[in-house]
């Protein structure tokens, strides 16, 4: 690469990086400044964080929303990884014509838009008296074709020798999954964990439909509620946004490397 081209590439990447980071920097600045300063375009972190925080918890039940989101997302993620990884393993390791056909049918479920199944699902859960329950929030997204596919692909690289050796050692089939498969597939599990947890944490449409009581409020709903008031306090709003982003950002930074590795395994 010539020097001129190199400069162009670096400049381009720097500009894109800055644009990518700027709105997040803006969010932090706004969360720590008075609404009036935010409007005036102040771009330095301020000292108004405590005041914004106080009026945020005055307006909304932040602790409750955080707890609800954490609980829902964590339980959902654990169940999803359990069900989908065992299924993906089953589809690949014990594959035969029948299972391959079932898998092909499952894949078509990926095309079903959520909006299409939302209304019948809402009616189903309300007939069962399950509106406002955690189960109703979780059940539709525990098993997803995408996750099953990801684990099925990953199972391909799991050596059959290990399975045979474990069988000779007297390990049960489900024992092989938990004692052998799970530890070897750490990066796939991490990638699946990030994707599922973030989706669950960020999910907005379905909770908005199925969780109607104030006591089931989740973080995205809380942030959205901050818009409800007539005049928007940008400092408070951005603090809500900031709090909503912290958990996903932490997970993102902790698992970024394994995410890239897991995706690499899945697209191979």
């Amino acid at each position: 690469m010539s020097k001129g081209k190199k400069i162009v590439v670096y400049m381009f990447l720097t500009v894109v990086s800055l644009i990518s980071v700027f709105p997040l920097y803006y969010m932090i600045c706004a969360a720590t400044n008075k609404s009036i300063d935010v409007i005036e375009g102040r771009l330095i972190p301020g000292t108004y964080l405590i005041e914004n925080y106080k009026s945020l918890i005055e307006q909304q039940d932040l602790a409750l929303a955080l707890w609800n989101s954490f609980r829902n997302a964590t339980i959902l993620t654990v169940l999803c990884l359990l069900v989908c990884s065992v299924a993906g393993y089953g589809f690949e390791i014990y594959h035969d014509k029948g299972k391959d056909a079932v898998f092909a049918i499952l894949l078509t479920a990926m095309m079903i838009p959520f909006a299409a199944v939302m209304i019948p699902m809402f009616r189903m859960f309300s007939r069962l008296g399950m509106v406002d329950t955690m189960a109703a929030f979780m059940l539709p997204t525990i098993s997803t074709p995408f996750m099953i596919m990801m684990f099925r692909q990953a199972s391909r690289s799991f050596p059959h020798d290990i399975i045979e050796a474990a069988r000779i050692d007297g390990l049960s089939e489900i024992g092989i999954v938990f004692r052998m498969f799970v530890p070897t597939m750490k990066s796939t599990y991490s990638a699946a964990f990030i994707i599922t947890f973030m989706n669950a944490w960020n999910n907005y449409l379905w909770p908005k439909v199925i969780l109607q009581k104030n006591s089931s409020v989740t973080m995205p709903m809380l942030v959205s509620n901050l818009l409800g008031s007539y005049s928007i306090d940008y400092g408070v709003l951005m603090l809500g946004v900031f709090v909503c982003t912290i958990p996903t950002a932490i997970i993102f930074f902790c698992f970024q490397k394994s995410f890239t590795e897991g995706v690499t395994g899945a697209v191979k």
Partner: protein
Amino acid sequence: MSGQEKRKLTLQQRHKRIGWIFLMPSVIMICLFSFYPMIQAFVLSLQTGLGVDLKFGGLNNYIRIFKDPTFKQTLFNTFFYLIIQVPIMLVLALCLASMLNNKDLRFKGLFRTCIFLPCATSLVSYAMIFRSLFANEGFINTILKDVGIDPINWFGNAWTARAVIIIAMIWRWTGYNMVFYLSGLQNIEYSVYEAARIDGATPLQSFFKITVPLLKPIILLTTITSTNGTLQLFDESLNLTNGGPGTSTMTMSHYIYNTSFVHSPNFGYAAALSIVILVMVAVLALLQMKVGDERE
């Protein structure tokens, strides 16, 4: 000998059965929460009436769709986002990925983290950030004023409001798709590029002759998922513009939500709308898969 064979066979059969047990929970759940509601949605779409007071109406809902100006508007909006946003985002992601794949590039990790970072924000959160950036008294207008340009009422005009949605979506999703391309690029041997360079290929040539063909399956995957995501767009429409001004930025999912949960609920009509989305998603996915195959 024959006894051993028999035992082996039964062992294999036993394994097959265990395999079915392994995948049953997920299969049952997908049937219960995807296929069954889809059939129900179809049945529901043939019924008319408000709230729980439903009666069979045949194809009335579908006939109504074709005369519904709001539906036409939301259809136009959704496809407008699809046609403008998805290509820009994917091309940008591909360019960034191939730049970052360069071995001699420094600060690679830093660039990648920065560009991937928007994915860490939730959909509602980033909608709020862009809403306040582009607000009437927001940061962008303040900057415009400082430079001496008249402030723009971004959310008061249909085209500027659509532009904000598209900008926001490109910001949020480019890094996500870039990671998929980067992973794909890592599977391509670097020596292929070096050989091409020695043979006198320009970077542009090796991009179109090596990168694009080898990444085709991943490009197809990202195209299908992005199309699917854009056709189901909801959070941005609701939180960034609330569909406004009027219904000029409203997406189809947002319209379905409003039809079923905001005004007097009309589940039958909403179900018919959702079946229309389902057909469009399926047709587009099949079309894309077909195009993807033909290039081989």
